[in-house]
């Protein structure tokens, strides 16, 4: 473990980065979670890259073969085939790409809005703060998934709509957190110093406050990814996610629900994939949070 930390931070001395990393890795779930996340990213990007070169492994996710429908897992189809004879493993590999895209893009959107609103609210305070925070309070009363479903249903389901909408409704937590960070950091000596020197507000925000609030923001980002993945899976399951024939983990389960009692592989494997992917992000996020809070 020590050599790994040295390798990553370049020094074994008590630098903040290496202390942070040591705290992070002292959580027993941190390393397995990071390995699973890397594996997930590798699978998603690898599949996308291979298919962009026209090469499908193990086979084309949309290739139907009605003579081979609903086959249980075998050496030919490792995770079985679905009701149209499509290979479940291939479909799940392509589903990984969708899940990763949804997670990363939705979180980027929500992070952008959340940081902006939180920064304005926390830095300027007063009436602006009141209006923004009361809107956040009101938005927090809405059940996120139902709100997403409502908007997706009206707007029409597509990958871009889904990620944008998930991002647009899930920024409230980030905004609250960034605001709280700004409220404390605003009173810090170095921020007051910068203000006395006559620096512009946006420069103080960008150069002095935001970098010091980076750790908690990173934590919310990591914890936001599995939320988005689960929302997309739920939408796909209800038929309002990324549309067929594009495979997603949620719609493989939805397609398989008619054959639930005898084609268990259509339910079990994609469900496990969703569970393991979101679990890894939650565990990594929690380990990051503990490390950021400075608990050894």
């Amino acid at each position, binding site marked *: 473990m020590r050599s790994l930390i040295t390798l990553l931070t370049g020094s074994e001395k008590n630098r903040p980065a290496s202390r942070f990393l040591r705290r992070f890795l002292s959580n027993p779930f941190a390393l397995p979670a990071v390995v699973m996340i890397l594996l997930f990213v590798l699978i998603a990007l690898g599949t996308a890259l291979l298919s962009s070169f026209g090469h499908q492994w193990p086979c084309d996710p949309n290739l139907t073969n009605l003579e081979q429908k609903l086959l249980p897992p075998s050496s030919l189809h490792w995770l079985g085939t679905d009701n149209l004879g499509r290979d479940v493993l291939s479909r799940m590999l392509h589903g990984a790409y969708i899940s990763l895209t949804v997670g990363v893009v939705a979180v980027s959107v929500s992070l952008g809005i959340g940081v902006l609103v939180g920064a304005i609210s926390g830095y300027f305070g007063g009436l602006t703060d009141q209006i923004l925070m009361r809107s956040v*309070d009101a*938005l927090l009363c809405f*059940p996120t998934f139902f709100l997403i479903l409502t908007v997706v249903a*009206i707007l029409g389901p597509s990958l871009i709509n889904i990620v944008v909408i998930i991002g647009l409704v899930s920024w409230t937590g980030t905004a609250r957190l960034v605001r709280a960070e700004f409220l404390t950091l605003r009173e810090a000596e170095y921020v007051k110093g910068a203000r006395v020197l006559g620096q512009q507000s946006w420069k103080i925000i960008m150069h002095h406050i935001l970098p010091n609030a980076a750790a908690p923001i990173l934590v919310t980002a990591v914890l936001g990814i599995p939320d988005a993945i689960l929302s997309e899976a*739920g939408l796909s*399951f209800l038929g309002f996610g990324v549309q067929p024939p594009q495979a997603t983990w949620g719609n493989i389960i939805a397609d398989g629900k008619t054959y639930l*009692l005898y084609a268990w592989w259509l339910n079990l494997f994609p469900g496990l994939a969703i*569970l393991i992917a*979101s*679990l890894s992000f939650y565990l990594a996020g929690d380990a990051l949070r503990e490390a950021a809070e400075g608990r050894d």
Partner: protein
Amino acid sequence: MGSFIIRRLGLSLVLLFIISIISFFIVTLTPGSPYPWGELNPKISAEVKANFRKKFHLDRPLHEQYALTMCDLFTGNLRSIKDDRPVMLRIMERLPATLALNVTSILISLSFGTLLGVAAARYAGSWQEITGSFVTFIFIALPGFWISYLLAIVLVTTFGVPILGTQSYGIDFPNPAAEWLDRLWHLLIPATVLALGGIAAQSRYLRATMIGTMREDYIRTARSKGLREEVVLYKHALRNSIRPIISGIGMLLPALISGAVIVENIFAYPGMGRLGYEAVLERDYPTLVALNFVVAALVLLGNLISDILSAAVDPRVRLE
């Protein structure tokens, strides 16, 4: 306490106003046709379209549309596109089932969450506690629809028990008690699925605060008096760590209702979540506006109650 409640009520009214704006505009401003039959359907005459526009005030400017829709909502003039019944009536029909489901689910989250949280604080750092915390993370990461199906398979194939709806049909119950037990059973399965996330969240909050409380001097005093560890934990430590649990109820509600959209649909449970999904499928915009509003207002009410409860158990809250 009086002034605290008045301040909280005032704030809630402001939030209710913002909620009504959001729930109206989120449906109205989203691009897409307001017509359930499609914008360019040639079979619909211009007259029908004009009537439709007039009925839902689509011929007025946006702010008037908002005001008129909200008036209609409360006077019962806002009618569903599907069956032309007042939207409020349709929602109120589903309210008892939804309340039963949510209250059961919250009770399950609270009781199991508290037990798990106290145990986690007691054995913090041991391998049992680490395993337990891993399990709570699984609860959070489980897709609700997946675990519902797995449960359904296991319960139906191995035990052969009915699980759909609010009660079993086609059975003559020998006495009312049996009928109520049957209803309770049908309530318990979706409620448990919905409660999983809540159990995890509650136990994690409680563990964090309990570990802080356990370092206090009065806990050491209680221990040195020779009190049993259970008494120290549940009577001394838990009482002073209960606040995050109560304010957590308010945060559980939106997640519960979100989850209910899927879980009620799978278990054919006639609550508001299922109504919402049906409205989405039918593009029933008046129902969607009303449902988003009513659900958010219920959550607001839940928050208000949990704030007042927090203030009742912990006087420090009143001054914040």
